C-alpha cells in the first residue's frame, strides 16, 4: 500500500503539481487578512470532487498546510494576523519589525513552521495506525460517547460563553436531522421540499457560514477596508538564522510542537488557542521572560511551531475515528467521503493507500511550503497590496460557483445566501459558529450510534456506562462542562468585583 501511495503522489506529476498549487494558494489566502485558510479549503473542495481521489485530497492537504503557514507574513509585516492561528506571532513579530528585523522574523517563522509541521506529521504517522487498532474494538456505544465528548469539548471551548457554544452545537445537530433519518429511513423536517431529502450539504453550510458571512460583514465595515496601509519592508538572507542558533532553542521548539499537537488532537480548540498557549508556556518557562514581547525570535518560534503542529494533530482523530476537531478537518472529511474513503478504524485496511498518500502529501507539502514561502516571499508580500474591495466580490462569486457545482442545484445557491445571513445573525449575537458546524457533522454520527447501541440492548441505556471506554469519555465530557461552568462563575464574580463586563470574543479559525 505504501508503494501504491508513492506511485499516486511522488511519481505523479499532476498530484505534485496540485500540492504545489494548493500550498501557494493556501499561503496567499493565509497571508491576506480577511481571507482565511478555511476559506481556501471551502472554495476548492467542490473542485476536488471532480478529480482523481488522491489528487483531490492532495490539493486539500496543500491548501491546509499553506493556509496555516501564510498567516505569519501579515502578522509580522502588517501586525495583523493573516489567519487567527498566527495571533501570537504578532506579539514579537511586530516589535521585531519595529526594530528593522522583519526579515529575520519572517525567515525564522517559515523555518519553524516547517519544523512544527514536520514533528506533527511524524506524530500522525506513528500514532494513527496504533490508535486505529484500538478503535477497532469500539462499538456504537463508544462512538456515541466519543461524539458526545467531542461535542461538549467544542461547545465549552469555542468562545467565552459556554451556553452560546452549547446552543450553537445543538443547533448544528438540529440541522443534521433534516432529511432521511438513519436506521429506519423516516423522512423528517423537510416541509415537503424534496431537495431536503438528502439534508443540507456540508459544503453549502460551510460556504455560507465562513465565506458569505465574512463578505457581508466587510460591507458593514467598509470604512475600515483600507486599513492603515503601513507595511514594513524587510531584508532577508537565507532563513535569517544560523542552524546552530535555531537548534539552541530546541526545548522551546519541542515544547511548542507538543502543545500544538495536543491541541490539534483535542476537538474544537484550534490554531489560535494553540499559538497563544505555546506563547504563554514559552514565556513562563523562559530564562528571560521579561524580554518576550519586546521583539525576540523565541516568541515567533513558540507561536509558529505550535500552529503548524496542530495540522498533524488534528488529522489523528479525523483519520482514525472520523471526528473532525476544527473547520479545516470538517472540510477534509467532506473531501474524503465524496471519494468513498470512510475515516475510521478500518481506513488502514480499506483505503490504506490513501492514508499513506495523505502522509506523503503532507510531507511533500511541508517541504514545498518551506521552499516556496521563502523563495516567493517577495511576491506574497506584493499580493498583500491587492485591495480587499476587489478581492472579496470575486471570492463571493467563487463561493456561489462552489455551492452550485457541488450538486448542480440552484437550491444550494440560495441556501448559501441563507446560511450567510444566519452566520451574520450568529456573529451579531456573539454565538460562535464552529460548534455549529461540528455539531452538524457529529449530529448524525451521535444519533445513528445511539440508536444502534440501544437496539442491541433492547432499549437499555446502561450500555453507555457499563462499557469502560464509553464511560470514560462520558465522564470527561461531564468534567469538562463542570470545569467550564466553574471557570465562568469565577470570571463572573471577578467581573462583579471589578465592576466591568468582560468582553466576549469568539475564537476564529
Amino acid at each position, binding site marked *: 500500500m505504501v508503494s501504491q501511495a508513492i506511485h499516486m503522489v511522488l511519481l505523479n506529476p499532476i498530484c505534485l503539481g496540485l500540492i504545489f498549487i494548493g500550498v501557494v494558494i493556501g499561503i496567499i489566502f493565509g497571508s491576506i487578512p480577511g481571507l482565511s485558510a478555511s476559506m481556501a479549503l471551502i472554495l476548492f473542495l467542490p*473542485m476536488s470532487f*471532480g478529480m482523481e481521489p488522491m489528487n483531490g485530497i492532495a490539493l486539500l492537504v496543500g491548501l491546509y498546510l499553506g493556509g496555516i503557514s501564510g498567516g505569519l507574513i501579515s502578522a509580522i509585516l502588517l501586525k495583523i494576523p493573516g489567519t487567527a492561528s498566527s495571533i501570537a506571532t504578532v506579539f514579537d513579530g511586530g516589535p521585531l519589525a519595529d526594530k528593522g528585523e522583519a526579515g529575520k522574523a519572517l525567515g525564522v517563522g517559515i523555518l519553524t513552521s516547517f519544523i512544527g509541521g514536520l514533528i506533527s506529521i511524524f506524530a500522525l504517522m506513528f500514532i494513527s495506525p496504533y490508535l486505529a487498532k484500538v478503535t477497532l474494538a469500539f462499538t456504537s456505544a463508544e462512538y456515541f460517547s466519543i461524539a458526545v465528548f467531542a461535542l461538549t469539548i467544542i461547545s465549552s471551548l469555542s468562545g467565552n460563553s459556554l*451556553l*452560546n457554544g*452549547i*446552543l450553537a452545537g*445543538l*443547533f448544528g445537530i*438540529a440541522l443534521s*436531522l433534516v432529511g432521511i*433519518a438513519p*436506521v*429506519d429511513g*423516516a423522512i*423528517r*423536517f423537510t416541509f415537503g421540499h424534496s431537495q431536503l431529502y438528502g439534508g443540507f450539504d456540508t459544503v453549502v453550510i460551510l460556504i455560507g457560514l465562513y465565506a*458569505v458571512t465574512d463578505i*457581508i*460583514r*466587510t*460591507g*458593514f*465595515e*467598509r*470604512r*475600515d*477596508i483600507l486599513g492603515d496601509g503601513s507595511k514594513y519592508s524587510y531584508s532577508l538572507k537565507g532563513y535569517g538564522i544560523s542552524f546552530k542558533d535555531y537548534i539552541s532553542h530546541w526545548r522551546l521548539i519541542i515544547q511548542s510542537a507538543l502543545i500544538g499537537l495536543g491541541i490539534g488532537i483535542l476537538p474544537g480548540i484550534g490554531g489560535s488557542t494553540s499559538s497563544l498557549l505555546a506563547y504563554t508556556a514559552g514565556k513562563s518557562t523562559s530564562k528571560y521572560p521579561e524580554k518576550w514581547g519586546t521583539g525576540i525570535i523565541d516568541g515567533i518560534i513558540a507561536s509558529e511551531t505550535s500552529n503548524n503542529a496542530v495540522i498533524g494533530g488534528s488529522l489523528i482523530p479525523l483519520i482514525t475515528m472520523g471526528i473532525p476537531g476544527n473547520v479545516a478537518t470538517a472540510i477534509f472529511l467532506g473531501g474524503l467521503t465524496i471519494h468513498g474513503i470512510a475515516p475510521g478504524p478500518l481506513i488502514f485496511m480499506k483505503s490504506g493507500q490513501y492514508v499513506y498518500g495523505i502522509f506523503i502529501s503532507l510531507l511533500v507539502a511541508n517541504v514545498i511550503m518551506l521552499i516556496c514561502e521563502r523563495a516567493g516571499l517577495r511576491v506574497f508580500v506584493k499580493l498583500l497590496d491587492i*485591495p*480587499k*474591495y*476587489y478581492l*472579496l*466580490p*470575486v471570492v*463571493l*462569486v*467563487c463561493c*456561489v*460557483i462552489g455551492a452550485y*457545482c457541488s450538486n*448542480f442545484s*440552484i437550491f444550494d*445557491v*440560495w441556501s*448559501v*445566501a441563507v446560511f*450567510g*445571513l444566519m452566520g*451574520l445573525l450568529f456573529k451579531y*449575537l*456573539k454565538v460562535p459558529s464552529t460548534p455549529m458546524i461540528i455539531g452538524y457533522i457529529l449530529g448524525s454520527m*451521535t*444519533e445513528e450510534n*445511539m*440508536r444502534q447501541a*440501544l*437496539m442491541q440492548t*433492547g432499549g437499555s441505556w446502561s450500555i453507555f456506562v457499563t462499557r469502560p471506554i464509553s464511560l470514560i469519555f462520558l465522564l470527561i465530557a461531564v468534567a469538562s462542562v463542570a470545569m467550564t461552568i466553574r471557570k465562568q462563575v469565577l470570571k463572573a464574580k471577578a467581573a462583579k468585583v471589578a465592576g466591568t*463586563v468582560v*468582553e466576549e470574543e469568539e475564537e476564529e479559525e
Partner: protein
Amino acid sequence: MNLSNKKKSILTSVLFLIFGVFLFVQATGVKHMMKNDVGSGFFPKVIAIAIIVAAAIRLVMALREKESESKASNSDMAGGWMTIALIGIYVLAFNPVGFIISTIVYLFAQILVLTPKEKRNWITISAISIIAPFALYALFTHVISSPLPKGIFGF
C-alpha cells in the same frame, strides 16, 4: 441596531427558545416505524429539550446581567444592507439570467459598494467585472468540466 449586550443575550435566548419549541412540535409528528428502535422522532426531541433548557438558563442569566454600554461600532449600515441585497439578487438571478451576465452586474455593483469614493477607478472596476466572469466560466466549463448556468441568453 446597536443593542446592548444584555438585550443581545435576551434576544439570543428567546430565538433559541422559539426554535427549540418549534423543533419539539415538529419532532412529535415523526412516525415511529420499527418496533425495537427508539424511532426517528426520539433524538430530535432530546435535542429540542436540550435547546429549550439551555436557552431558558441563558434567559435567566441574561435577565440578571447588568446593562453595559456596548462599544460604539464603526459599522456602516448602508454598505452592509446593500451587500446583502446584492447577494440576494445575485443568487436569485444566477440561474434564470445565467452566470456570465448576472456575475458581471453583481461584481460591478459589489465592488462599487465596497470601494471608498476616492479610490474608485472605473477602468479597473469594469475590467475586473468583465474579465473575471469570462475567465471563471472558461475555467469551470472547459478545464474542470462542470457547466455553469447559461441562462436566457444562451451563454
